[in-house]
């Protein structure tokens, strides 16, 4: 892969680019979908492609393609430089340099870290030893476990296993060069329970570096339990009250917070956290950091999407917002150092600032104690409408929710069809306690968080 990247950088120079960077990725993956005890579909595929950033002075352009032949790469480089000619000049635009990438300036919070020699454990080499038949059996076991969990489980909408083995390479005209491999897999299902007045659904999921890390029975059981827990759900009374977010829901909100901590959003005045660095933004109980090197984290890699080393960056500690997350462009513009936070959704997307693995440090209260601390309130186990119910600029949100009532510090009747509303900063400030039940959740970036107790939020039901 590094070869294709090098050739693309050379081709861009020939096409007239002053500086260029190429990102090549190759991915092979399988997916099994099962339903009703039979395999519904089985997909096996490989894909590879190349994305090139070209700079002409202070202008930058991007192009991607799947044709890695010599003429294909030449045409791709040509398109990237053409794109750069269309863009306006931007004084902070420029290719990342290996100096800044390897050592660079570190802010006070990022001390003494240098490029890791290599990050172990990103890849499970046994992934290829699993035949599709064995993977299908894994997916079928997820479904079977859910179906046999309880007679009220009416079916499973779908049980899925999927994996991906990826190889990524970056090369640039400024001397950046790097390559790494990683693998991941996940399993999930959507279980259906027959309720008193209609069906209830429950999601169960698990993830790992390879299929051996998945526990199919646990995934199936979780989906069944979540669906069963919702039977007979009613609407809560509208009020402001303590709210406990389970790890899956907490992860969605923490993911939104992470989006607001991107220096890009902050510099362009599109973040509720703009102008709040060094200020009090959270309850004492909350400690949040971004760690691109945690071997368990699915966003971990030795370097980010533009070749800058990943690192661990404290974001919120002792109530205070410590720093934003930077890539090369925003670091130049904000007179800061890159935190190694450039990400891409693959070779089809140019790098942009994003969290790697966002981690909430575990607190001291077990789940039962957290409910006890809440007293009278609501446990939220699912939210819907996050993409439409949150204003990313102001942080104001109102989203659909379901969960359980909390009475006298214990779980009571199931609740559905209500909304919870607040804004992201107020919500962080209202974090009263943090649980010990931390879990990796892949729905809103890669986030690891325990349950969170929010002192007060608006609940709207009947």
């Amino acid at each position: 892969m590094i070869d294709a990247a090098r050739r693309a950088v050379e081709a861009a120079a020939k096409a007239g680019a002053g500086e260029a960077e190429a990102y090549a990725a190759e991915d092979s993956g399988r997916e099994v979908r099962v339903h009703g005890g039979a395999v519904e579909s089985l997909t096996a595929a490989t894909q590879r492609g190349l994305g090139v950033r070209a700079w002409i002075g202070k202008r930058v352009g991007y192009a991607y393609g799947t044709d890695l032949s010599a003429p294909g790469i030449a045409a791709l480089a040509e398109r990237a430089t053409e794109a750069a000619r269309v863009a306006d000049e931007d004084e902070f635009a420029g290719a990342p340099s290996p100096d800044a990438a390897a050592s660079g300036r570190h802010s006070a919070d990022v001390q003494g870290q240098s490029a890791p020699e290599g990050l172990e454990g990103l890849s499970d080499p046994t992934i290829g030893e699993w035949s599709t038949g064995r993977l299908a059996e894994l997916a079928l076991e997820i479904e079977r476990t859910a179906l046999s969990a309880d007679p009220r489980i009416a079916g499973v909408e779908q049980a899925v296993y999927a994996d991906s083995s990826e190889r990524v390479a970056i090369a640039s005209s400024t001397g950046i060069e790097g390559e790494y491999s990683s693998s991941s897999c996940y399993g999930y299902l959507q279980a259906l329970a027959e309720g008193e007045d209609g069906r209830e659904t429950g999601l169960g999921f698990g993830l790992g570096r390879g299929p051996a890390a998945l526990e199919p029975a646990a995934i199936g059981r979780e989906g069944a339990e979540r669906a069963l827990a919702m039977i007979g759900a009613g609407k809560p009374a509208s009020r402001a009250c303590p709210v406990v977010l389970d790890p899956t829901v907490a992860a969605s909100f923490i993911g939104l917070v992470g989006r607001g901590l991107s220096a890009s959003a902050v510099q362009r005045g599109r973040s509720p956290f703009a102008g709040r660095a060094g200020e009090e933004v959270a309850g004492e109980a909350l400690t949040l950091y971004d760690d691109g090197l945690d071997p368990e984290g699915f966003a971990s890699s030795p370097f980010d999407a533009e070749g800058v080393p990943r690192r661990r960056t404290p974001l919120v500690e002792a109530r205070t917002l410590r720093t934003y997350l930077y890539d090369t462009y925003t670091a130049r513009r904000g007179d800061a150092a890159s935190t190694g936070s450039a990400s891409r959704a693959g070779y089809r997307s140019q790098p942009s600032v994003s969290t790697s693995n966002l981690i909430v440090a575990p607190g001291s209260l077990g789940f039962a104690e957290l409910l006890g601390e809440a007293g009278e309130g609501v446990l939220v186990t699912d939210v819907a409408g996050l993409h439409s119910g949150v204003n990313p600029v102001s942080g104001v949100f109102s989203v659909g929710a379901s969960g359980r009532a909390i009475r006298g510090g214990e779980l009571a009747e199931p609740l559905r069809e209500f909304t919870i509303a607040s804004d992201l900063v107020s919500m962080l400030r209202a974090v009263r306690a943090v649980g010990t039940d931390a879990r990796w959740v892949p729905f809103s970036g890669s986030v690891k968080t325990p349950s969170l107790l929010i002192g007060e939020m608006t609940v709207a039901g009947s």
Partner: protein
Amino acid sequence: MSELIDSEVAARVLSRALANGGEFAEVYAERSAGLTMAIDESRIEAVQSGAAAGAGVRVTSDGTTYFSHVDGLDPADIERAADEAAAALHAERSEPRPLSAVTGTPQPIEAPPAGVSAGRKAELLRELDERARGAGGEIAQFTASYAEARREVCVANSEGLLAGDDRTRVRIGAQAVARRGDLVETGAETLGAHRGFELFDGDPGSIAGEAARKALTLLDAAPAPAGSMPVVVGGGFGGVLFHEMTGHGLEADHVQKGASVYAGKLGEQVARPLLTAYDDGRLPNEWGSDGIDDEGVPTQKTRVIEEGRLAAYLYDGTTARRDGVASTGNGRRESFRHLPVPRMTNTYIAPGDAEPEAMIAEVERGFYAVSFAGGQVDPATGDFVFGVSEGYLIEGGKVTSPCRGATLIGNCLEALAAIDAVGNDFEMKTGICGKAGQRVPVGTGQGHVRIAAMTVGGTEV
């Protein structure tokens, strides 16, 4: 279409795909090219050019689909994909039927965007920027994006079908941020079509003005009310409500798995007789239109609700074979890397006979949801939630103050049955719909629609 994959190659691929048996085989080839750019802080940036080509081969046997896809259109690679798809089967070879071409009618394109200079596209974005910034000093930020994409597709299957399509879509989007002290509000608007650059012949800058107006209006907004009340939904993108709360539940894959609240309700009265709705993939130049679907079936107009009665589900080939019916031309996929699934095209509620003003005048206290930021539904339970991007209180039959942060929440069957007025106005809007990890362009439309009672989730208890 013969440019993408030669009919002899297609026949050979299908034959190899069925080498170990199977009832059905298909090869889908595609070539796409696109350009996107944005304006932010009054600067043209994020200029991106993309190109991809590839093919997917699938074989179905006893209800299982075996699928493999490759990058590039080299016949040798596509044949290898066919071998890979067939590898898990161990039955006797089956024979594909000889191919005969079906002609779909591609949507008419006057000015292919690839023939328009990139500079002209950048000018269009600058025009939007100026328009928005001219809307007042409280407009603090403005961004706009331009996207064009051409997608040539070719499908051949073992039942003898050979079909192709050539699709060009263009779309611009505008987002304004308005600021007054600590108050920050956003407004957005889009314009898109299955059409060439001629889409922008009119007054494309108006979407920037509209985005700015929405953001500025919200600066004067009060917190949204919380509780159950009558809701009047605006025309155009208001149709996303019907798309989410009914459309998805009519997609045959959900229905067949019992994961739709509309399963088993065909022919039943699910709404009042004033409601008739369609899915129409043939509407000329609409965003969700195509010549053929991604399985080669000509797109069609399907009446899904007829005077309140559930009239039809939306089928792709796989779900149609399972129910012993014909595909409704709703088999769509994001790209050659995806399997087709039943998807909506342009879904809309047909105009009724109510005057929009009168629909509002009849409401004592309620909510007017002009447009949505988006929505989500669980087809199995029917629970849905929508974020309102522009909404107002209705007091004494009049639209009064704007509201921020409103969410509509409810259950599909209840809300559909509670529609008690459909306006005589009508508008279509563009959307990008996500399902099964695949995003496809869809059109949504309606005139004003009133729901007798719905839960509004706001911050004002």
